[in-house]
């Protein structure tokens, strides 16, 4: 990204992410969990399972089933959100589930359910991508067998320029938003959406940028997981 670029509202470089921090293991009662702060996004993902399937008729004999709910708190948005699940939340629940499912070794857990809950406590642009990174970290934190972590990041177009990780403010005048999730080690894109207006050239460039972003998120997830592991082992040693 050494081209002569237009300045972004945020002052970020075209391929620069917002500030991201991930913390694994934040919910005591969950089997796995993570808190992600991604720009102004504040999101907790928690995983329960593998556990018994309810209702029973949903049980599959040779693999786990995955449930996923993406939910925004009423205070998470500019205008208060009504508490019931919106059609938007139902759609995002589905695309997140379909984005993370290919990473899970479901056949290792026949006749069980793995439940994924995403709670948006404060929202900003790109909450679905932020959420997927939290879910991936929470799944690993829960010890669920996985083929790969799932990393997610959006690219888009704002102010005439293809950029990484469009935030709320850029989105208002933005021309396109293209959220992506991928299994980095398998070169597999498992979430792909687009709204806006991109030429073929911009489309390809956005794809490349999103890939760069995903790789960064992949490393941030690994850091969060090893930090938790390291801290726990330290604690254990202290206790011994």
């Amino acid at each position: 990204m050494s081209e002569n670029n237009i300045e972004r509202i945020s002052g970020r470089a075209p391929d620069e992410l917002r500030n991201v921090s991930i913390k694994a293991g934040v919910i005591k009662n969950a089997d796995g969990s993570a808190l992600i702060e991604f720009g102004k996004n504040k999101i907790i993902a928690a995983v329960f399972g593998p556990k018994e399937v309810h209702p029973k008729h949903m049980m599959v004999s040779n693999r786990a089933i995955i449930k996923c709910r993406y939910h925004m708190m009423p205070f998470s948005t500019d205008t208060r959100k009504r508490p019931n699940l919106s059609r938007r939340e139902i759609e995002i629940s589905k695309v997140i589930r379909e984005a993370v499912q290919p990473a899970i070794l479901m056949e290792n857990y026949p006749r069980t359910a793995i439940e994924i809950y995403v709670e948006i406590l404060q929202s900003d642009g790109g909450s679905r991508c932020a959420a997927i990174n939290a879910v991936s970290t929470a799944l690993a934190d829960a010890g669920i067998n996985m083929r790969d972590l799932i990393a997610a990041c959006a690219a888009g177009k704002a102010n005439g320029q293809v950029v990484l990780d469009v935030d709320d403010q850029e989105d208002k005048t933005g021309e396109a938003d293209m959220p992506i999730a991928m299994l980095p080690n398998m070169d597999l894109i498992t979430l792909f959406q687009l709204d806006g207006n991109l030429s073929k050239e911009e489309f390809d460039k956005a794809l490349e940028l999103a890939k760069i972003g995903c790789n960064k998120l992949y490393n941030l997830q690994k850091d969060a997981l090893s930090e938790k592991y390291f801290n726990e082992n330290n604690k254990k040693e202290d206790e011994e």
Partner: protein
Amino acid sequence: MPAVKKHRIVDAITLDSIMSKLSDSKRTDDRGLLDYRKIEIETNILKDKTNGSAKVKIGDTEVWAGIKVETANPFPDTPAEGVMTCNAEMLPISSQYVEPGPPDEDTIELSRVSDRGIRESGMIDVSELCIKEGELVYSVYIDVAVINEDGNLFDAVAYAGTTALLQADMSKFTIENDEVKMLEEREKLPIKSLPISTTFAKIGDKIIIDPNADEQEIATARLTLVTDENGKYVSAQKGKPGGFTFEELKEISVISKEKGEEIRKMIKEAVNNGA
């Protein structure tokens, strides 16, 4: 909670037949990997109660669309813009796998993706749907009924909705002494573009276009990509719990534009013939 639901059952014989044909780069109905089934488009099929209507068949998939243009108060934050809503409904007559009742997550996704395709392409200029700023605007409802289901609903719903919009007209209003009056005349809707949806599926390592119901069921991933008249990509949605490689996405993006131009011609022709 959105969750796994009962899916279409594809029997072993059908599965074998699809896979063996695919290994020869063919489909069970002998079309090529990147061929659409026969597309039939008919307009003005519900002329007594709608502002515009269309029936679209893609192979055995059949959907009917009806447009209703009503008037409404504008939203407070967009006082000079009309309102557009696109909604797809899976009728229980369309398949033994469809249950009557409130829309499930698949139907909600279908509605929302169809809505975004039209909205993001700027097909309708909502600023021209204003009758009196802050008080009265047009409200355009695009309702699409799935009558018979054999895969690729994303494209069928999109074609029926956009065709019906192209055919539709609406009452004209004027403002006299600050009062809104309806005129005798009618006018066409303010259409600016014709977005075309194309839908791909991945079975094994093969990418096919326009999957039928069985192909769709066994596919690991689905991609709907919408292009506008200027060859821009305006909307996309990946579905199903699998993925595409970067190369596959780039390949799909090229084909989508080519196929989109063909189908755009078909729709325009159908509307012209019908008018």
